[in-house]
């Protein structure tokens, strides 16, 4: 294959470099060589006709569960990467709650090796804040960073011990490392299984009040202000959190945040008649919270759209609601759900692209996320007007736990390129291995 590729006459949206218009994009040896308003004439280039399509920086997902090692029946690094590139993602950050937990160089090396073998998208690592995610002793942060971890997080678990959280924020400054937090005060969420409100009352399910999240965000903003560390708030779900993060940013604190497509699309009524595909943590909230999260996405309070891709098998979901596991898969529906919000007018297309590319790249200091000359040729080509119906049976992910099965969504991923290699095209994975 030619190592020179010309993306011709696509609408290039590159928020970091202020580009939005029809351009030619030239790629050489895995890197962006030129972005030109005038048509380029290049000898021996592989030409991608992109007229009528969007040519975007490859999407970056800061929050993905690949389940390997430990729960390969739900997902493997290979199938997770397949789902990622099918969804237009060229980079994912793998969460540490594997079995064993990624709190060591050994597990980090294993994940990296498997990702190299899959050879589809970039897989960055998140290491644990505490050993075994137990919330008691700090993991060896320096070793994790040298093994390639780009952030630390106890993932689905909050660091309940405020003293420990404070020291983690301080210590991580040795490496200028973002500390990613699942904000939940467990004494407030208790045995809750969905948002506390009219629907939980009606269904007789134990509710999780918004204060469970907001109180922890408030605590961590206080700690952040004191320590001057770097904090990344995972999956923001409610109005109060958005408000606190907005204020913190205004005061100059080093905080970034992400929101998931399910939290800016569905409210708690999606639980319906005990549909466990709507069980997640944080839980789906109310219409008002959705609006607040969307406002946060639009005004820059929230930096990134992340999927919290959480594959689970039938055994974890086809059970009583209060026994079901939390989480939904998200890599293959994220773009469509984001573009649906654009279509509703709550988000500009440029901002939506920024949230999938530039925002996440900057939050964790990752390469990519833009198309300036010299940047890695991670490129997603999208047909913005094509509508499609979500069919979970056709997911590349090994799991099917989505509340969006059957939903019509706009925006089809036509091609995904990683380092100038075509890895996904027209519904098919290319060049795996």
């Amino acid at each position: 294959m030619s190592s020179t590729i010309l993306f011709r006459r696509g609408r290039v949206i590159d928020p970091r470099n202020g580009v939005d218009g029809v351009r030619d994009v030239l790629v050489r040896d895995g890197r962006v060589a030129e972005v030109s308003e005038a048509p380029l004439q290049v000898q021996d280039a592989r030409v991608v006709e992109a007229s009528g399509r969007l040519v975007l920086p490859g999407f970056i997902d800061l929050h993905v569960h690949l389940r390997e090692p430990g729960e390969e029946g739900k997902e493997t690094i290979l199938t997770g990467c397949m789902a990622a590139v099918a969804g237009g993602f060229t980079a994912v950050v793998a969460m540490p709650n594997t079995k064993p937990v990624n709190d060591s160089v050994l597990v980090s090396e294993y994940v990296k090796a498997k990702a190299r073998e899959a050879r589809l998208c970039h897989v960055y690592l998140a290491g644990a804040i505490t050993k075994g995610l137990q919330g008691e002793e700090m993991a060896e942060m320096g070793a994790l960073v040298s093994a390639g971890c780009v952030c630390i997080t106890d993932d689905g678990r909050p660091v309940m011990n405020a003293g420990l959280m404070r020291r983690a924020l301080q210590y991580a400054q040795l490496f200028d490392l973002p500390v990613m937090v699942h904000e939940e005060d467990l004494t407030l969420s208790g045995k809750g299984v969905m948002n506390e409100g009219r629907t939980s009352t009606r269904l007789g399910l134990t509710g999780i009040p918004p204060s469970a999240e907001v109180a922890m965000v408030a605590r961590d903003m206080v700690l952040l202000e004191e320590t001057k560390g770097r904090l990344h708030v995972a999956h923001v779900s409610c109005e109060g959190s958005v408000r606190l993060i907005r204020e913190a940013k205004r005061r100059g604190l080093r905080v970034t945040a992400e929101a998931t497509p399910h939290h800016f699309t569905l409210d708690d009524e999606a639980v319906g008649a005990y549909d466990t595909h709507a069980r997640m943590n944080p839980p789906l909230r109310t219409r008002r919270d959705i609006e607040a999260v969307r406002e946060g996405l639009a005004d820059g309070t929230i930096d990134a759209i992340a999927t919290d891709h959480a594959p689970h098998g039938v055994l974890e979901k086809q059970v009583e609601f209060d026994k079901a596991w939390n989480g939904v898969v998200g890599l293959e529906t994220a773009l469509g759900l984001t573009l649906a919000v654009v279509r509703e007018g709550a988000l500009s297309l440029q901002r939506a692209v920024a949230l999938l590319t530039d925002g996440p790249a900057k939050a964790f200091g990752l390469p990519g996320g833009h198309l300036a000359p010299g940047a890695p040729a991670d490129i997603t080509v999208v047909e913005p007007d094509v509508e499609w119906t979500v069919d979970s049976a056709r997911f590349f992910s090994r799991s099917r736990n989505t509340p969006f099965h059957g939903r019509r969504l706009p925006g089809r991923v036509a091609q995904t390129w990683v380092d100038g290699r075509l890895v996904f095209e027209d519904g098919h994975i290319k060049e795996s291995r």
Partner: protein
Amino acid sequence: MRHLLGIEGLRRADIEALLDRAEAHLHGGPDASHVLRGKVVANLFFEDSTRTRTSFEMAAHALGAEVLNWTTAGSSVSKGETLLDTVRNIEATGPVALVIRHRSSGAPHLAARHVRCAVINAGDGTHEHPSQALLDAFTLRRRWGSLDGRTVLIVGDIRHSRVARSNLHCLTTLGAKVVLCGPPTLLPPGLESLGAEVTSNLDSVLPRADAVMCLRVQTERQSENFFPSAREFSRMFGLNAARAERLKPEALVLHPGPMNRGVEIAPAVADGPRSVILEQVAHGVAVRRAILEEVCR
């Protein structure tokens, strides 16, 4: 109706038809012992129960059915079998209906999605207990003729009560006003939007009530800090003799049982002239016959 998973969503006509049929059963009515002859009704009680299980069993027998009584004790559930596997295995033996009691809200809904026979919710977690609500409504209707314009006060642990939820839907659909009363910690959000009046001031609403339904206080809630002590609960929300004095002369007292005598209800009130508690139990069989007949048609 194919299943009876809850009262929510039933129309007034559906409920009245069930109560009418129960009335016919109560009076002896035409011989119904052939209705389910040769058929099996499976009682699946994943949670303990005396009243409801016995009552469904008697109702099934009265309709000529065989009853398969299944409980978790000594079952494969203790070996880790899932709810769906248990339900599918029981269904494979060929019952016409599954009567399910489970500690998880929504468990009968899950079962109903995966079986072909009828599913009757005999109480699911803190969600609904439809047969109880129907027998409560039946008891009130027999006394009053109609529930239209009546006020029913339900007092106690509303948050964790499936009886309160089912009764709220049932009584309001039949035209009554429902007032829910308890400490603020036991009043979950959104009750007003479900059609209830909500208060924590028991004494202020007592004089308006045409009936008071006391709910069982689950004493484990004390350790979860929903209220400070059973004694304080009793003082604030118990239906004692002095409070009963403040009721309208003809007001009725109900309790779905089992009762904590001296906590949510004083013995003198439970056994007093206003009490229809044993009538409720007696009506249970007639109402459950009507339910079985309806879903097994």
